[in-house]
């Protein structure tokens, strides 16, 4: 029992003996190169492709808006004609 407790204490204290480690020089180089690498990635995408993508998104939004507006207008006119039908059929019945 005592041996087990000592072993557990020993294992747990091994974590407190861990030294802080410096960053490897090769990694520091990679980190310092991040801004230029990101800029290079953006530069690799042709401007024409970016404009085409933007235009496609714009077109999609416009089509969606158009479709949403026209369907709400249809619903409105349907509701109006439904009301008129009910009204006139009721007065015909009278």
């Amino acid at each position, binding site marked *: 029992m005592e041996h*087990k407790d000592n*072993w*557990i204490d*020993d*294992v*747990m204290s*091994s*974590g*407190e*003996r*861990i*030294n*802080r*480690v*410096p*960053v*490897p*020089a*090769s*990694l*520091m180089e*990679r*980190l*310092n190169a*991040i*801004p230029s690498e*990101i800029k290079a990635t953006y530069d690799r995408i042709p401007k024409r492709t970016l404009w085409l993508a933007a235009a496609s998104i714009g077109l999609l939004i416009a089509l969606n808006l158009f479709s949403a507006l026209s369907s709400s207008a249809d619903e409105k006119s349907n509701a109006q004609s439904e009301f008129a039908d009910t009204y006139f059929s009721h007065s015909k019945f009278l």
Partner: protein
Amino acid sequence: MGSKLHPLEDKDFIKLVRKNKDQAFQHLVSSYSERVYNTCIQMLRNREDTEDLVQEVFTSIYLSIDSFEGKSKLSTWIHSIALNKSREFIRNKTRQKRSGIHTTLERDDSHIVPIRTIDFYHPGVQLEDQERAKILFDAIDQLADQQRQAYLLNKVEGYSYAETAELLETSVSSVESLLFRAKKRLKELLSDYYEKNK
């Protein structure tokens, strides 16, 4: 390794970001890379993975540097990015390993036998402590997320209770409670390991 700059006050850092983003980033790399590297290596214990992860963390920092508004401390913001990226990395790695042969996870009712990783690497562990540290880290991996973070920050990385509380965005009393439960659970896991292996 690059020379270390004197850490900037958070408000001065925000000003620097607006003035010169790249310079602000170089400042972060110089001031925080060692801290991030040590946090990541405690989580992964694998050299290549740690280097890839640290690069990923700093890429993420560079891409979101403009969004830092000083609502939390800069060190807390960086630490939370490092933690989130580490979790994401471990999740992906675990998913890959489940279909591979690198780890075994055996469940025995209430106790989980520590995962045995083949590729344990930690440059900060002294040679004579390698085996013990490996067992300890395997047990630490079994702790609940918050307990593990608190234990690693306080017991392994050596942050004070107050610093640990700040990095975890919680109170000192919560950290004390997390550490108490973490130590209790670790003792249970190690006792279980001892019974089965010694």
